[in-house]
């Protein structure tokens, strides 16, 4: 190979790799005009480069990712509207606000979350505790999932989407409200500890405040706020825009996270129900009548096996494996 031909081959490669500038392209252009032979050389390179470009695209472009990227660009106009509403809230100076809006539909999903690349955490079979990039700690019950944008720290709001049950310990950051989206409902906080369940009793959405302060409202009536105090529960029924507040709620609402139970002369059927919830395992009484037996016992994050052994020996029961769960055999109490 002569030095000259190496020179032009390098020029051709620079051209095809996008390296060549204006002058080099002009040089290539006039070289091509010089002879048929030059054109043939160029054609050989062209075929290889074109085939490789095609291969490059086919191998490296992920159509699902591209579709998501497109969705994100298309919805950027909608984000502005959200931002405007948020500014209004800040103006009204309601700190530590919790907005809770429940829906039965999935409409908000793409609108709020389709805008950014999201990460989904799915607690498939067990309770998962995870720390988000902003420092907030989320405990997800089994079967629940949480989505959050990859760049949660770069956004003005920390927006996450919950399906199922979770406990939130939100890292304090008054600049960036933390918003939990549960269907149509939203919980907005600046830093506090609370519980959300999108699958509450009778399909209600529940929020229980552990500490801090939160405000709740339905998305359609943002001016009608309900302020929740620690130890209070709010419930919203699907289709209704009202939020009811009370302080009576299931004592063991967080048992799936804590696995801490302390029973004082409690009925067996209730104990079994709570243990079942704590370990996310179905436990049945073979004879429902034996649920009337009472016992006093405490458990502190023990294994399921040891809990069952204690129950067996306390009430003289027989607990057997039954499919994925357990079945409790025993006699009713007098």
């Amino acid at each position, binding site marked *: 190979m002569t030095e000259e031909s*190496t020179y032009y*081959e*390098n020029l051709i*490669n*620079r*051209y*095809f*790799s*996008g*390296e*060549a*500038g*204006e002058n080099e*392209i*002009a040089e*290539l*252009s006039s070289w*091509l*005009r010089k002879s048929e032979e030059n*054109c043939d050389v*160029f*054609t*050989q*390179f*062209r*075929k*290889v*480069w*074109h*085939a*490789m*470009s*095609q*291969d*490059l*695209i*086919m191998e*490296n*472009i992920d*159509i699902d990712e*591209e*579709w998501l*990227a*497109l969705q994100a*660009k*298309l919805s950027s106009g*909608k984000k502005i*509207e959200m931002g405007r509403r948020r500014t209004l809230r800040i103006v009204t100076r309601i700190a530590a606000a919790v907005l809770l809006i429940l829906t039965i539909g999935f*409409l*908000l999903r*793409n*609108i709020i979350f389709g805008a950014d690349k999201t990460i989904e955490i799915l607690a498939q079979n067990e309770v998962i505790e995870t720390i988000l990039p902003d420092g907030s700690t989320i405990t997800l019950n089994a079967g629940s999932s949480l989505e959050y944008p990859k760049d949660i720290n770069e956004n003005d709001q920390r927006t996450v989407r919950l399906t199922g049950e979770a406990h939130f310990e939100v890292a304090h950051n008054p600049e960036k409200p933390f918003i939990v989206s549960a269907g149509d409902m939203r919980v907005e906080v600046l830093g506090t500890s609370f519980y959300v369940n999108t699958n509450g009793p009778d399909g209600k959405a529940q929020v229980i405040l552990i500490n801090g302060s939160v405000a709740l409202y339905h*998305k*359609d009536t943002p001016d009608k706020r309900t302020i929740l105090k620690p130890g209070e529960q709010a419930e919203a029924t699907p289709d209704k825009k009202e939020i009811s507040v009370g302080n009576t709620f299931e004592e063991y609402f967080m048992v799936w996270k804590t696995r801490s139970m302390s029973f004082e002369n409690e009925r067996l059927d209730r104990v079994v129900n709570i243990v079942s919830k704590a370990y996310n395992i179905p436990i049945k009484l073979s004879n429902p009548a034996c649920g009337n037996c009472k016992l006093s016992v405490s458990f502190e994050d023990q294994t399921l096996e040891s809990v069952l052994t204690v129950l067996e020996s306390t009430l003289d029961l027989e607990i057997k494996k039954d499919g994925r769960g357990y079945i409790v055999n025993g006699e009713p109490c007098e």
Partner: protein
Amino acid sequence: MALTEIRTIQPKGLRKDSFEELFRKEFKNLCVFSIKYVKDMETARSIVQDCFIYIWEKRETMDEEKNLKSYITTMVYNRSLNYLRDQKKFDRNVLEFEGLMDEKSQMADSGIMTRELKGEIQNAIADLPEKCREVFLLSREENMKYKEIADHLGISIKTVENQMGKALKHLRERLGPYLPILLLSMFPYKELFFLLN
């Protein structure tokens, strides 16, 4: 709520499912089409993305019956050429030698790639000497300029150039038998800038 209306009201022209179908079917083909002009995957990707966004934003005036594929192809073609012109890399003579001044002939062969050729490209790249492959992949997949590759690997630009030459020589030998025998399309200049954006 304004946000939900966007989803519930059916747009008059192009429907979302048809749009998505077109996107999923043609996105990569259009990138292959564009990269031949712009020589760089990221640029090709963003040109094609922008064209789809344009189509979606104008969906009410888009007729589903109309040949959207050829419409968007022309748009990608024009934007690719515009890019070259903006970068001062537009040279009609070279593009003609490359067979790129006629969009129709190009689209006809995009998307067609035999399995043998595809496998052979991977094999041929894998068989490159290590240093040579590294340089080649940085240029091709990481989209780095010769200067960046040189800095990254702590070698001279001259060495980068030599390694690229070596890689291409090897690839030409290996891929030659698999490549389609295409006649150079030396079509006279066509008025294809009518859709300039």
